[in-house]
């Protein structure tokens, strides 16, 4: 389901991987092809981490023969923040559209800001906005919650890399957002805790700030439509969907069935219920569980 992973669903795993390569620290290889991450249909390219993974940009590199010093937690945290800057930039822009669109839907000023601050999930927030505009609270919350259900297996996957007791691990688990999760993946189920946290701490303020910009400078609804801004929500979902469709034949089948169910239900029920009904397509996952990942 990370689908965008961007929780920020918005910044996207592939972008995170690009950033990682751009920083020149990691030698990437696509282990995801052979090792699907539990619950994550949109798999990220994982990476191997050489001895100096996380070395700050510009630092003097040792000669190939010299023994390599493992990056310190602080260096890995800074490295994660460096990756997070790129993710944050994308999140900022997308948050502007979120703020502008929900302001046009009558959310006011405070609600979008609080929503971005405490939900911090582009996919869930966009789903909430879409479902609320056409249905009640329960269907809207259910739809947003189901969209974020991917964080359950993602959280399980990072659990062993976190520290402390149950409470501390649960708190550290809040750092799991799509781009950061992808950036912190070391390959074969291992994660860099500091990199995960570092990448997330710079995305949160960008997401909230972008929402504020969108809320305060939102154009009138008529102007927004004239400018084509009403396309942003479905376009955002479409891009994420395209990433999902690449993962497996089952994902494509589930998308087709889910879309068809929603299209049919939109004739008779509000949007929120149509979204919930579409999740029945996920039960396809119970059929013949071997050989689904083909990428």
């Amino acid at each position, binding site marked *: 389901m990370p689908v965008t992973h961007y929780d920020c669903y918005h910044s996207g795993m592939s972008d995170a991987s690009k950033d990682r390569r751009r920083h020149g620290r990691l030698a990437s290889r696509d282990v995801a092809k052979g090792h699907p991450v539990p619950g994550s249909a949109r798999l990220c390219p994982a990476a191997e981490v050489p001895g100096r993974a996380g070395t700050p940009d510009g630092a003097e590199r040792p000669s190939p023969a010299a023994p390599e010093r493992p990056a310190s937690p602080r260096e890995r945290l800074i490295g994660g923040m460096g990756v997070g800057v790129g993710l944050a930039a994308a999140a900022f822009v997308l948050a502007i559209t979120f703020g502008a669109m929900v302001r046009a839907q009558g959310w006011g000023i405070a*609600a979008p800001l609080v929503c971005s601050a405490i*939900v*911090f999930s582009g996919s869930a927030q966009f*789903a909430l906005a879409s479902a609320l505009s056409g249905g009640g609270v329960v269907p809207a919350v259910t739809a947003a919650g189901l969209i974020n259900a991917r964080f359950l297996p993602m959280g399980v996957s990072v659990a062993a890399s976190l520290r402390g007791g149950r409470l501390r691990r649960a708190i550290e688990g809040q750092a799991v957002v799509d781009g950061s999760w992808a950036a912190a993946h070391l390959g074969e189920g291992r994660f860099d805790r500091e990199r995960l946290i570092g990448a997330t701490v710079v995305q949160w303020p960008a997401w909230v700030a972008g929402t504020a910009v969108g809320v305060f400078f939102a154009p009138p609804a008529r102007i927004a439509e*004239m400018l084509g801004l009403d396309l942003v929500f479905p*376009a955002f979902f479409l891009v994420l969907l395209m990433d*999902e469709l690449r*993962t497996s034949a089952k994902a494509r089948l589930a998308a087709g069935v889910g879309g068809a169910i*929603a299209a049919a239900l939109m004739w008779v029920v509000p949007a929120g219920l149509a979204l919930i009904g579409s999740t029945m397509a996920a039960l396809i996952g119970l059929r013949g569980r071997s050989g689904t990942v083909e990428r």
Partner: protein
Amino acid sequence: MTLWVAIIAVAVVSLTIKAAGPGVLGERQLPAWTQDVIALLAPALLAALVVVDVVGPRWTSLDWPVLGGLATVAGVRLLKAPMLLAILAGVIATALLRLAIG
């Protein structure tokens, strides 16, 4: 009031979901069948979200410029463009189509 209830509820649900893995399950893995179902929630819901946004209640919101914009988004994305660039291209295409149609 409804809006605030929804926002807080979504926040609680999201926080709980993120906390559940590290805090409760620890290093244990979910049963494989649940992973398979969860993995397919995303494509099913995303397709439904696109449909719901495009067609609207009783299919009253179907708008050809929006369909053209979405086709543009898909085409640009297939050319490996970044997400934001693809969305921007779709927005521009939608605006131009509306301008052309009047």
